[in-house]
């Protein structure tokens, strides 16, 4: 998911062409305080006029307790982007309050409550402690993400680049998301020139179970996509497992071997996930 500063018209216009799965039109940290109104107006116009064909559009609003949060909701919610990203959520009461406000705005505009999803960002130690309860509060919440920079600051970490300090939080957040069966996105990698560092981090967080990663420059898309897209070998292996499963199922066999390795239901489930990520229809195998 590609972050785009909400006050940069050229980047907002071109956001969808780089191959990211989603664009995050940002009204929060990427926008200077004296540009907040301009960014809100610009993003609202862009949502009306620019086609982000093939890209999920999410708008990150300012926190509700800032002077900009409520106005952001008032302007953006009626435009119903695919999702709204809520920063620095710490407690269940807070998410309850924000969701009520969103629904109130939707009611004022005769809009349904089901269309626009909500992404919750966990960016403080308190948020990490409460993440499971926050994530399961409403079915509208369909993703959680970790905001690494703010979390590191909240934890008073001086050197945070290696990710050691936020490792526990990453794992806690992934587990909460998995328990709620929703997506979970990793934080940004700030060193745009360091392609290898990005690849290492992306491979690590993929192993942790993250669904994807937020990025701050289109040049990072290729690396993250490469890491998260199954390789040809992985796809072939998964297809082999699924085909063997179908054959064995017909004969009533639940556990069998493929290339000398045991295959049971969880292995088949992982293989199906690989095929799903590769956009391959199981019926076509």
């Amino acid at each position, binding site marked *: 998911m590609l972050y785009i500063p909400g006050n940069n018209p050229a980047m907002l216009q*071109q956001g969808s062409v780089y191959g990211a799965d989603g664009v995050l039109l940002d009204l929060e940290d990427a926008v200077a305080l004296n540009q907040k109104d301009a960014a809100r107006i610009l993003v609202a116009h862009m949502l009306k006029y620019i086609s982000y064909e093939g890209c999920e559009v999410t708008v990150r609003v300012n926190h509700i307790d800032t002077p900009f949060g409520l106005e952001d909701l008032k302007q953006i919610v009626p435009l119903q982007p695919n999702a709204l990203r809520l920063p620095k959520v710490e407690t269940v009461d807070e998410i309850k309050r924000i969701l009520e406000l969103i629904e109130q705005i939707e009611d004022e505009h005769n809009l349904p409550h089901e269309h626009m999803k909500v992404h919750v960002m966990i960016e403080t130690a308190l948020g990490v402690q409460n993440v499971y309860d926050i994530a399961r509060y409403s079915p509208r919440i369909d993703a959680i993400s970790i905001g690494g920079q703010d979390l590191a600051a909240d934890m008073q970490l001086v050197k945070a680049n290696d990710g050691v300090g936020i490792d526990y939080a990453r794992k806690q957040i992934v587990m909460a998301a998995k328990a709620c069966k929703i997506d979970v996105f990793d934080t940004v990698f700030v060193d745009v020139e360091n392609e290898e560092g990005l690849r290492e981090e992306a491979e690590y967080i993929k192993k942790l179970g993250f669904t994807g990663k937020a990025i701050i*420059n*289109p*040049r990072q898309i*290729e690396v993250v996509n490469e890491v998260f897209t199954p390789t040809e070998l992985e796809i072939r292996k998964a297809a082999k497992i699924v085909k063997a499963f179908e054959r064995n199922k017909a004969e009533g066999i639940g556990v069998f071997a493929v290339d000398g390795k045991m295959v049971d239901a969880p292995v088949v489930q992982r293989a199906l996930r690989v095929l799903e990520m590769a956009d391959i229809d199981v019926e076509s195998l």
Partner: protein
Amino acid sequence: MKNILQREIPEELEGIGKLEAFEGAFSKLKKGWMEEKTVPPPNKAKMPHSSKICDTLRDAILKTKPRNGMTVSFHHHLRGGDNLVYEAIKILADLGIKDITLAASSLTTAHDPILPYFKDGTITQVYASGIRGELGKAIAEGVLPKPFVIHSHGGRVRSVHTGKIKIDLAILAASAADEEGNATGAHGPSAFGSMGYAAIDSWYAKQVIVVTDNIVDYPCVPQSITQNYIDYVVKVDSIGDPSKIAGGTTRITKAPMDLQIARLAAQVIEHSGELKEGFSFQVGAGGASLAVAKYIRKIMKQRSIKGSFILGGVTSYGVDMLNEGLFRSIFDVQSFDAAVSSSLLDNQYHIEIPAGLYANPFNCGCMTNKLDIVVLGALEIDTNFNVNVITGSEGYVRGASGGHSDTASGANLTVVVCPSFRGRIPIVKKKVHTIVTPGESIDVLVTERGICVNPQKPELKAHLEAAGIKVKDIAVLAEEVEGITGKAKPIETTERVVGIVEYRDGTVIDVIHQVKE
């Protein structure tokens, strides 16, 4: 009269003569011969042991007996660091020479300082493959009394062979030369690599001066230009700005948009059916075009493909691919950076070629005919795939025909890469301001908002779609772009034709009208 692309062409133009309308990329070539007669190279003689060395460029020019109405030629291998064109024209102007035809292989912003000589009657006509900067603006506004001629690199050679360009004096910069005029660009403090565009001038000019900042012991090795064609040799303190002549390494762009277009183009090439063992390849040195090489390099390594040769303007990136064993050889008509010079000097599989071997359509086969894949840029492209690489959105001349139409006509797969719009200016549109390369030579357009295959290439479309690549109708893309940018205001021009765009076979593919100031 109208040419086959429906562009209105005058029957005749004062300063050029009768014009012939473009009738298709191969309408003249397919006859198997060139109808125009070729002119012989000049006869020369020189007594043994007489010296060619002149103390100054002025002395050398004086010895050639310059006259009003003469044609003076230069090459553009010094890139952005060239100061020789200015120095030479200034000397001619100080001598009171008027009505000069400037036949430079290309003119860049480095040549802006000669603009006053366009205005005072010193230079009255220009033949070049490209014109940029202040000169491009001024000529589009009609500063020259005679129409300028834009030709391709291959077309320039043809024009010299046929005497359409009759060079009286060629002034050729070299980074190393000996007392007899054997010269190279491959070594010396101002090394710039290949001298491919200069060879034809040395063979056909009535008089030739080699200018160098680096006289070496006789004989100069290697020899791009040989002594039997050279009249005078001049040692100067400087041929230009060495940091711009012999500057650095061409780096792959970091611009996200260029990289995205390049990535898509590489996908197209990968699934076109042309990326196979032994393929030949050419890319430009600019943004997205060069970046395609980055992705092709990766694919070649993954699929263990080895190419046959890299052609054309060569960057250090191409040299890296040669050194990695990804290609067997490089044929180099023009080098784009300093790293290329050392490769040209040291690697026997990196071969300097003259412009005629590179791209002249009228011989027994130029190397562009052997290209499998070429990746080219565009300033504009229309819904019939006709490409403009010469005039900008204001109508000024700000680009180069270069080898665009030469390579596009020869390659099996011609890929044009460009953004669909720049700023608020549409690039993909219904009609381009000036046609340089005909749509029939373009196979596929790759932009950030869509990949469009020329309808004349249904098999290519089928290959791409079979690989899951979405193909868009170019008319649909043009409409989408207009929806974003709005309709651009037409460029305001007068009836006066200030320049012509020659196709490589010598016919006129388009004309350039005077831009209203």
